[in-house]
C-alpha cells in the first residue's frame, strides 16, 4: 500500500477575500514544498499531497519528513497514512503531526463520522440507515453497498475499510487519455476558461470511465500566448468528476494569474491562455458498476440541467443568489454564476444603519431609472421634503400619489464626507407601491412592491 503524506494548512482559504487570491498566495507554498519533495500533488488551496517513501528515506524516517515539511508554514499540519484518503483525514486531526502506522487505517478511520466521506448524499443516506461512523459503514456487506450506492459508494466503502485503491503508476496507463483544448482568441478570465473547458473536462473523465477506470490525479498544463507553460499535478481525495477538473483548471489559472490594472478582470496582463492540456497522472480501477445505475441524486440533475442552460446562455446566464451586507437593497444582493463560489465582501450580520429592516420589495431596479417626483419636492437640510410629493412621472406617464412616507436618510461614512442618500416610500393612486432613492435633488427608482 502506498504511503502518502498530506500537508494541510487549516483555514487557508479564510485568510483571503477571494478564492483567486487564496490560490495565488498558495503558489509560493507549493514551490517551497517542491524544494523539499520533488513530486507533489495539489488537492486544493491549503492542501498538498505527496508520496511518503522518497521523503522518508531522505529524512531518515516519516517523522523526519514531517518535521521538514512543518518548517514551511507554522500552521501546517501533517498527516501520513496508507493511501490519500486516510492521509487527508490524518492531517485533519493532526496537531501538528499525525502518523497512522502501516496497516492501521481501518482502526483509525472507524470512529470518524461518515461526513468525512466528502459525499453529502451518501453520508445523508447512511445516517438515515442508522450508520453514522466510517467503522459502521465498513461493516456493511460490500455487495449490498455496491448495489445500493453504485461505484462511488463502493469506492468510499473501500476507503472506510482501509483498502485504498493502489493506483496504477503512470507508465501502466494503457491508452493515451490526454486531451487538449486550443483557444483562438486567447482566454484571460478564469471564469471564461472554466466555461470553455467544461465540455473537454467531461469528455476527458467520460473516456477514462468508459475503460472502467477512475482518475484520482491529473496534470493540468496551461500555455500562454507567449509560449509560457504552467504545469501542475492535482489530486483528488476520492475521484475526479468533470466539474472537479474544471475547478482545478480555474484554480490553476488563478494561482498563476497576475493582477491586471483593471481589478474587475483578473488574469494575465495582456497574456491569455491558448491551450489547456489534461493528462491523467493516476488511474484507479473502477468496478463494472458505474455511476447512474443507482439513480443520480437530484442535485446532480439540477446541475446537469443548469449546465445545459449555461451552454445556451453563457456562464453568467444562470445565477445563484445570497444576501450580503449593505444599505440599499441592490448593495445587499450578491449574484454569482451557477458553479462559482459567491464573493461576499460585506458582512450581512453587521447592523448596516439605513437598510430596510424587513418587508422588502419584490422588484429591485438595477439600472437607476430616473423618476420625477412632484414639482418641487426637494430635500431640506433637516431631512424633510420641502413639499409633499403629489405625483410621480415614470416613462412619460404621470401617476397621482395616494400615500407616502419618508424621507429616511442613509448615511455612509459620514465621518469622512461620504454621501447621504434618502429613501422615500410612495403609493400611487393605482395602488402600486414604490421605493425611491435620492442624493438630494433627483430621484431614482430603488424598488417596487409588485
Amino acid at each position: 500500500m502506498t504511503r502518502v503524506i498530506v500537508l494541510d494548512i487549516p483555514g487557508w482559504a479564510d485568510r483571503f477575500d477571494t478564492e483567486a487570491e487564496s490560490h495565488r498566495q498558495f503558489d509560493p507554498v507549493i514551490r517551497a514544498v517542491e524544494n523539499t519533495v520533488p513530486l507533489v500533488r495539489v488537492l486544493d488551496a491549503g492542501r498538498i499531497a505527496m508520496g511518503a517513501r522518497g521523503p522518508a528515506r531522505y529524512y531518515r524516517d516519516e517523522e523526519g519528513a514531517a518535521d521538514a515539511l512543518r518548517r514551511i508554514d507554522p500552521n501546517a499540519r501533517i498527516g501520513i497514512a496508507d493511501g490519500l484518503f486516510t492521509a487527508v483525514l490524518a492531517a485533519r486531526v493532526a496537531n501538528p503531526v499525525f502518523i497512522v502506522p502501516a496497516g492501521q487505517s481501518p482502526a483509525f478511520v472507524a470512529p470518524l463520522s461518515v461526513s468525512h466521506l466528502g459525499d453529502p448524499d451518501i453520508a445523508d443516506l447512511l445516517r438515515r440507515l442508522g450508520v453514522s461512523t466510517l467503522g459502521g459503514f465498513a461493516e456493511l456487506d460490500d455487495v449490498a453497498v455496491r448495489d445500493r450506492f453504485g461505484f462511488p459508494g463502493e469506492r468510499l466503502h473501500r476507503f472506510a475499510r482501509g483498502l485504498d485503491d493502489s493506483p496504477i503508476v503512470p507508465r501502466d496507463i494503457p491508452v493515451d487519455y490526454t486531451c487538449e483544448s486550443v483557444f483562438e482568441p486567447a482566454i484571460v478570465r478564469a471564469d471564461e476558461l472554466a466555461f470553455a473547458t467544461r465540455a473537454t473536462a467531461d469528455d476527458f473523465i467520460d473516456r477514462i470511465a468508459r475503460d472502467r477506470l477512475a482518475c484520482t490525479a491529473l496534470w493540468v498544463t496551461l500555455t500562454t500566448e507567449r509560449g509560457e507553460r504552467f504545469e501542475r499535478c492535482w489530486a483528488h481525495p476520492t475521484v475526479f468528476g468533470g466539474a472537479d477538473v474544471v475547478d482545478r483548471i480555474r484554480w490553476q489559472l488563478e494561482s498563476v494569474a497576475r493582477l491586471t490594472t483593471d481589478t474587475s478582470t483578473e488574469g494575465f496582463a495582456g497574456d491569455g491562455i491558448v491551450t489547456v492540456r489534461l493528462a491523467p497522472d493516476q488511474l484507479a480501477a473502477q468496478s463494472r458498476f458505474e455511476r447512474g445505475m443507482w439513480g443520480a441524486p437530484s442535485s446532480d440533475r439540477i446541475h446537469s440541467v443548469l449546465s445545459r442552460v449555461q451552454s445556451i446562455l453563457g456562464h453568467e446566464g444562470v445565477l445563484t443568489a445570497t444576501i450580503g451586507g449593505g444599505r440599499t437593497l441592490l448593495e445587499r444582493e450578491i449574484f454569482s454564476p451557477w458553479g462559482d463560489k459567491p464573493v461576499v465582501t460585506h458582512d450581512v450580520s453587521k447592523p448596516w444603519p439605513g437598510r430596510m429592516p424587513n418587508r422588502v420589495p419584490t422588484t429591485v431596479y438595477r439600472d437607476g431609472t430616473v423618476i420625477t417626483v412632484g414639482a418641487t419636492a426637494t430635500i431640506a437640510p433637516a431631512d424633510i421634503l420641502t413639499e409633499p410629493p403629489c405625483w410621480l412621472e415614470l416613462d412619460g406617464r404621470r401617476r397621482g400619489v395616494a400615500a407616502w412616507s419618508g424621507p429616511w436618510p442613509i448615511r455612509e461614512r459620514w465621518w469622512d464626507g461620504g454621501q447621504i442618500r434618502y429613501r422615500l416610500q410612495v403609493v400611487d393612486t393605482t395602488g402600486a407601491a414604490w421605493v425611491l432613492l435620492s442624493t438630494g435633488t433627483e430621484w431614482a427608482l430603488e424598488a417596487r412592491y409588485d
Partner: protein
Amino acid sequence: MFELSALRERIREMEGPRVDPRLPVHPALSGLVGGGLVPGGVYSLSPSLTLALGLATEAVAESGWCAAIGFPHLGIEAVAECGIALDRFVSIPTPKEHWATVVGAVCDGFTVVIARSPASVPATTASRIAAVARRTGAVLIVLGDWPGATARLEVDGVRNLGIGDGHGLLTGRDIRVRAVTRGITTTAVLPWPFDREPEPAVAPVRHLRAVT
C-alpha cells in the same frame, strides 16, 4: 415515432394528472387552485411577483428547487423573506430568444418554475412546454397569458397598510386575487407578508384634500 409519442401524450392526458399529491400552497390561495398546486400544472398570473411567490413558497418549503426565469430586477431579499431557501433557488434573468428552450429545460428537474412570458406565447410552444411539465411534474407559474393554463389568477386590487400621508411605513399589503377556472370566478385575499392575517374588509377610505 412521432405518432407513438403523441399517442402516449394523449393517454397521459386522458389519465389526468399524476397520482402525486397536490403540492401545498398558501392557505389564502388554496381555495382558488383546488386545494393545492397540480404537479405538471401551468398557472397563468397577472404580473405580480408577490402573487407568484405566494403561490410557490409552500411547495418548495421543505425540499425541491425553485427557478425564476426572465426577472432581471428580482429582489432576492424578498424571495428569501417569503421563505424560499436561496440554496435551492436560481435566477435566469435574461433568457432572451431562448426563452422557450430554457423554460422547457428547467422544468426537467425543478419543482417550481416562475417565468415571465414574452409578449405572446404561440399555442404550439405553450403545449410543448406544458407537455414537459406534465412529464416531469414541475409546476410552471407564468406571469403573463398562457393558452390552456390550469388556472388563471389575477390581482384585482391592493390595500397598502401602515403608510399614510407623509407618515408611517408600509407594513403589509392585502392583495385581492381573482381566479378564473373553467369560467367560474372565485376571489380571495392574499396577505403580504404571508404570515399575516388579512385586515378585515372595510369600505374604501377616500382621501380628503384641502382645496384652495
